[in-house]
């Protein structure tokens, strides 16, 4: 069921110019042959060949507008919001818009990845220009047909109109003619006040498919003759395969082969259950190849690293030593977080078919271009020979930024010379590494006799954490004497980007510590932050890489909406990450002696909000993620092996534990700055600060639930 978009009317080769902004027009749409796997199916394009306007859209003569969404969709709602932006500038009738996931194509699309909350900020102008350029070409076609100037025409709801004469032609009627015109080099984008789609609530374009169980995800993909594979990886980090006895596994029904490559023992067979069972029959001996570590070792290690003489200085302003020597008061605190697995609900999987003439890949990845390049590198072929089709992703959270599981599938298909779908189980996922790194921070603050913050020190130590600080974030710039440094320990336990990398924990630690300093200074935590920002504005120290006014605006909005200062147990937090700003206030009530998080207010500045439905949920989802992991989630190690390997021992937040969440946006009209991650970092701090108010106990380690005073606590109730 493949959609063939080839057409004899595809006369767009002359339109191969790149206009300013990098919008590439005139690609041959047959290059982007959409997947037969797409549930939208052939009907999406009507019976008549569509006319391609550019990499993002085509219009068929029967009026169906197809918009291609290039970036991976993993729940950030981009497959709906990207097309909304194109349709807005196109003046398209949204009810006739069909959306297709575009396959990877670096020649047509730039930054075709999902990560760093960057897809919308990066593509905003490109998407707008794509829509606006096509709209102008349609208007020019009408202008020619009617012999009237373009300036006298308007476009609306997929029609071009000439008001004076009352003439009207649909986009479908104009599409073919418009496609023969020269591409305009200058297009005027709409004024924000004229937006009709942007800023409204548009339902997810995959709702019907998701809610009726259509095959949308990588794990749902199937192909005639496809084999199922699972890999047994070493149980512990620091171990490698010594010998494999696969006789019993190979003899089991449905098993085609057992293949050992690198440190992987792959069982390949005809059905998932047969492969799962046979994998348990493998007899593998391992031997040590690196340190075999446990969480208890790491706890000791952190204490040593915090006193290390050998730290990398990340930022140094003024003279901290003198400031601390002259301080009237010094506040010192340490915060620690565990490793965390990403746990997207859809475990890792990928389909690969390595053939002599090229490679076909299908599945969920946040970085299709990287996956394609790594596959090509492994096989020693040109990436042009690798075709990668994106499915919808059952979550990502940063795990699918890595292409390890794609390369595994490619290697297996190459060895077996057969189409293979590689599946990781939940246990494989949770025990398989690429974790959020475990980190410990030591904060120190110096106050003078008038309770002014005159010195600030932060040391971050982490396991495979890279730089665990964000040295130019607040409060840097607001303190005259500041030192931020870090120490990294290299471990066999692998780590990777986890939604809002580093800041997913740093923000909680920092915002808790700021609260501690405000208390020590006898100041209201909101006023204390605002004073620091005012100082950074009036008399900055060193470089300031955050926008003070945007940060103040979200602080003020959150304080206003939450009735800050009028309620008993509230905790405040604000954080800048990935270009956007979010402030939060958590509210706690004490129920039968136990603190319960009842409500969280959020004020966000992500620039223009494209889809209010998706954006509101993105904030709520980020807060649920942030609170859930801060409260409940823990991954510990014993002898190099993860001790939690499924949801019976690894706790994820559930419905009953979620507080009410009240979402507000700052309306400042600036171009979108991203929202996939920024709501998560502030949550842990807001919750911890509110719990402190209610209990008098500082929560300095995650998960909170492991601390004695939090035992038996229910997170909250909507």
């Amino acid at each position: 069921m493949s959609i063939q978009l080839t057409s004899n009317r595809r006369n767009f080769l002359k339109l191969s110019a790149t206009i300013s902004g990098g919008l590439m027009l005139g690609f041959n749409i047959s290059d982007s042959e959409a997947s037969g796997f797409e549930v939208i199916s052939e009907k999406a394009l009507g019976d008549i060949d569509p006319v391609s306007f550019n990499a993002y859209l085509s219009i068929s003569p029967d009026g169906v507008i197809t918009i291609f969404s290039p970036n991976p969709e993993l729940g950030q709602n981009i497959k709906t919001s990207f097309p909304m932006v194109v349709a807005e500038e196109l003046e398209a009738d949204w009810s006739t818009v069909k959306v297709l996931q575009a396959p990877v194509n670096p020649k047509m699309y730039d930054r075709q990845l999902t990560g760093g909350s960057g897809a919308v900020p990066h593509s905003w102008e490109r998407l707008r220009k794509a829509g606006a350029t096509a709209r102008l070409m349609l208007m020019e076609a009408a202008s020619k047909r009617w012999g009237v100037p373009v300036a006298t025409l308007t476009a609306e709801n997929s029609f071009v109109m000439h008001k004076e004469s009352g003439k009207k032609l649909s986009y479908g009627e104009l599409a073919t003619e418009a496609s023969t015109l020269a591409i305009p080099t200058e297009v005027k984008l709409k004024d924000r006040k004229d937006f009709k789609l942007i800023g409204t609530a548009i339902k997810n374009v995959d709702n019907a498919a998701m809610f009726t169980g259509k095959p949308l995800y990588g794990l749902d993909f199937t192909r005639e003759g496809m084999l199922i594979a699972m890999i047994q990886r070493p149980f512990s980090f620091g171990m490698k395969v010594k010998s494999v006895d696969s006789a019993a596994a190979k003899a089991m029904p449905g098993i085609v082969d057992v293949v050992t490559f690198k440190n992987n023992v792959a069982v390949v067979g005809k059905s998932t259950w047969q492969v799962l069972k046979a994998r348990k029959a493998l007899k593998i001996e391992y031997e040590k190849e690196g340190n075999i570590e446990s969480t208890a070792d790491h706890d000791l290690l952190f204490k040593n690293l915090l006193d290390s003489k050998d730290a990398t200085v990340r930022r140094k302003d003024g003279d901290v030593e003198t400031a601390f020597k002259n301080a009237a008061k010094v506040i010192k605190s340490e915060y620690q977080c565990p490793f965390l697995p990403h746990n997207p609900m859809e475990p890792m999987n990928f389909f690969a078919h390595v053939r002599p003439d090229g490679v076909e890949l299908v599945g969920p990845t946040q970085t299709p271009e990287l996956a394609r390049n790594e596959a090509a590198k492994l096989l020693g072929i040109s990436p042009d020979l690798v075709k990668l089709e994106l499915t919808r992703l059952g979550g990502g959270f940063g795990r699918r930024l890595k292409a390890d599981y794609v390369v595994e599938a490619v290697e297996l298909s190459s060895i077996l010379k057969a189409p293979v779908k590689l599946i990781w189980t939940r246990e494989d996922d949770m025990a398989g590494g690429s974790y959020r790194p475990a980190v410990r921070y030591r904060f120190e603050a110096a106050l003078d006799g008038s309770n002014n913050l005159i010195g600030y020190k932060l040391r971050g130590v982490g396991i495979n954490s890279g730089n665990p600080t964000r040295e130019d974030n607040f409060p840097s710039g607001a303190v005259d004497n500041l030192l931020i440094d870090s120490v990294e320990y290299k471990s066999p336990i692998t780590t990777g980007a986890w939604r809002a990398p580093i800041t997913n924990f740093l923000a909680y630690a920092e915002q808790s510590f700021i609260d501690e300093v405000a208390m020590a200074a006898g100041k209201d935590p909101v006023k204390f932050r605002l004073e620091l920002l005012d100082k950074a504005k009036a008399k900055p120290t060193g470089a300031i890489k955050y926008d003070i006014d945007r940060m103040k605006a979200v602080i003020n909005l959150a304080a206003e909406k939450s009735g800050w200062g009028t309620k008993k147990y509230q905790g405040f937090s604000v954080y800048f990450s990935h270009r956007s700003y979010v402030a939060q206030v958590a509210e706690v009530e004490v129920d039968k002696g136990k603190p319960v998080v009842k409500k969280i207010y959020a004020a966000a500045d992500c620039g223009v909000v494209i889809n209010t439905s998706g954006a509101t949920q993105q904030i709520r989802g980020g807060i649920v993620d942030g609170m859930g992991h801060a409260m409940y989630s823990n991954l510990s190690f014993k002898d190099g092996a993860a001790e939690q390997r499924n949801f019976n021992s690894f706790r994820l937040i559930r419905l009953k534990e979620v507080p009410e969440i009240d979402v507000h946006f700052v309306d400042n009209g600036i171009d979108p700055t991203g929202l996939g991650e920024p709501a998560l970092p502030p949550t842990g701090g807001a919750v911890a600060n509110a719990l402190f108010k209610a209990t008098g106990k500082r929560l300095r380690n995650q998960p909170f639930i492991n601390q004695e005073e939090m035992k038996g606590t229910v997170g909250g109730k909507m």
Partner: protein
Amino acid sequence: MATYKLQINGRSLEADVDADTPLLWVLRDNFGLVGTKYGCGIGQCGSCTVHIDGNAIRSCSLPVSAVGTKKVTTIEGLSARGDHPVQQAWNEVDVAQCGYCQAGQIMTAAALLTKTPKPSVDQIDNAMNANICRCGTYHRIREAVVLASTKTQ
């Protein structure tokens, strides 16, 4: 290996599989009914929820040999046109983010409403607490169950 004759979504389907094969993998691998999802394989997350004689059951933990002649309904068979009140409510509330867990959520909600057409807040919470949503769409799940309960009247 043995042949099992199952009643799935009003049809009689046969699968030649091992007796201990979980219903989940029979649905997905043998019948191509991939709307029922694998999330954990140990009955903890609810992504694999189906109805067995109207009850919400974790298909990952139910061996095919235990199904017998009981009527199995999957997300694909919940309604002919995707317009079950719970499916309608899920669309109207625009519940999903990644969407992977939502078929299981919908099946859990539909079973609840069949038994308890007007559930209390606590009844909704208790039923839906069984299903994990990693994206955190819990507020909308709850809102959609309440909305669906007004549609079943």
